[in-house]
């Protein structure tokens, strides 16, 4: 016999993926089908051969030492997100404080109309907090919140 339509079940049978009933039926078929029996032997040989020749090789001997050295010297940030958030929020805080200072000094009134209007808008919105120490405080709080939130977020 040079082929058999049921030989497609051989691998599933070998990997024990057939339902119990199908398994019994296929075992009965195996008794009478030399082609499927040969297929099963071949697939079994491949199965064993593959698990042998795909075996992992040994780790490079210096791997552990080199990695541990690098974890000591090049401690990377645990959360890149935290860095980004802190950078953005501290940038914002510095910007707000800078605007406050510039506005107070009157520098913005000469030739920075748009920026002046923007600054006025921001400070109108933050009216109760309209003093320099409060602004700095606000910046610190923003950074604190960002740090807290970032440390709660797991990395993907």
């Amino acid at each position, binding site marked *: 016999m040079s082929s058999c339509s049921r030989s497609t079940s051989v691998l599933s049978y070998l990997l024990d993926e057939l339902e119990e009933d199908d398994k019994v039926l296929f075992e009965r078929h195996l008794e009478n089908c030399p082609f499927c029996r*040969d297929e099963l*032997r071949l697939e079994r040989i491949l199965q064993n051969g593959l698990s*042998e*020749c795909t*075996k992992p090789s040994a780790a490079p001997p210096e791997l552990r030492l080199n990695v541990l050295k*690098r974890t000591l010297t090049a401690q990377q940030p*645990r959360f890149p997100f935290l860095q980004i958030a802190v950078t953005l929020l501290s940038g914002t805080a510095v910007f707000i404080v800078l605007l406050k200072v510039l506005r107070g000094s009157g520098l913005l009134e000469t030739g920075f109309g748009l920026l002046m209007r923007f600054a006025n808008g921001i400070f109108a919105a933050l009216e109760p907090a309209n003093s320099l120490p409060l602004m700095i405080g606000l910046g610190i709080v923003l950074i604190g919140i960002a740090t807290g939130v970032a440390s709660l977020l797991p*990395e993907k």
Partner: protein
Amino acid sequence: MINDPDRLDDVRLACGGDRQAFGRLIDDYGGLVYTLLHRMVQDRDTARDLAQDTFVKTWTKLRSLRKHASFPSWICSVARRTALDHLRRIKVRKEVSMPEESFVENPDNCTQELSPEGIALLKQAVCKLSDRDRQLITLAYWKELNLSDVGRIMGIPESNVRVYLHRARKRLREHLRGYENELLQQID
């Protein structure tokens, strides 16, 4: 998945910043990571460097590991991404055939059923598979990983892993066409 409680302890300790425990994990999984990388990038020195990068990355991200038992599949995912990034960087054509040297050479390790000639045939056939089929077959036969791990590493839904594996095996058989009798005689 990790079942050994000592290994699980090492993962837990390493997550807390214990370098010695992390060192033991490097010993335990370094071979797996290195082999996967070697089969992907096809160069020993590069695989060695990338294995270091993989473990350093893992160390810095350990805190985000939620399920300690899934450390093996997690580190294999990191390794696979590291290799893919590298291949993208050097813009290597991805479907090149594998050097056989990345497979186990020591005949003592080989199955008793197959002679060295049989193993050589099988290796040749595996090397002719596509990158993805070869990765799939490699990972699926590692006892440290189950099929859902393999799915996670390869970015394939677990339900499809079996289907893809069957197809990979089928293609492997196609590469062995004409050698069936030779292989069957191996155990006669």
